[in-house]
């Protein structure tokens, strides 16, 4: 989790167990995360990357064992 999403999660990283028989999808991810964080994630400005590659559509997330999912809030740099 990056930026304020790490505050909502109260952690910078969280290890999640995989579902038994299928990849982790978007709804499964939200169900596994702290509710304050899960509720924030449908904001269209929040992007998702798997293993450093941005997803064009986060709702189609499919994550397997060992994958790193990054939750990226709107940026504010410079």
């Amino acid at each position, binding site marked *: 989790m990056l*930026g304020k999403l790490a505050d909502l999660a109260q952690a910078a990283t969280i290890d999640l167990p995989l579902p038994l028989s299928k990849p982790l999808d978007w709804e499964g991810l939200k169900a596994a995360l702290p509710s304050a964080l899960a509720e924030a994630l449908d904001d269209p400005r929040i992007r998702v990357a798997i293993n*450093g590659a941005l997803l064009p559509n986060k709702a189609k997330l499919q994550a397997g064992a060992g994958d790193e999912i*990054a939750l*990226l809030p709107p940026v*504010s*740099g*410079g």
Partner: protein
Amino acid sequence: MRDIRLLDQMFLPGLLIGPFTQANKGLGGVCTFVGEVRYDEGVEALELTHYEPLTLPGMHALADRAFERFTLMGLLMVHRVGQMRPGEPIVCVSAAALHRRDAIDAVDFCMDHLKSAAWFWKREKRATQNGESEWHWIEPREQDHSDLARWES
């Protein structure tokens, strides 16, 4: 000469700009922008977070686009991460070219993209009324997005 870096320690822009200028023999002009942490009332520190797999590769992709769009001899793009105090440099972009317009516009282009489309998250440590301090995340500004839109033609 292309030099793209993320730094987690304080840097002195002058020590980068001198060698960068020297490395681009025969240039016609150099334009440099240095951004520093402002002395805003009550702000004690600023922290920039990045995401390793995206942030530096994203800066390289931005540099590629600058080289495609402008006729450049060299580009220096250095960005801080970690905690900084007011007065410390955050970002330094310098472009060398045969002609001034390419150098000036390339720096402007890179800065507008670094401000609103690069993978950085910024928070400020501000003094509270009871004498302690708290961290606050900085939200993107509308102005940054309209600055970015200038380059979409």
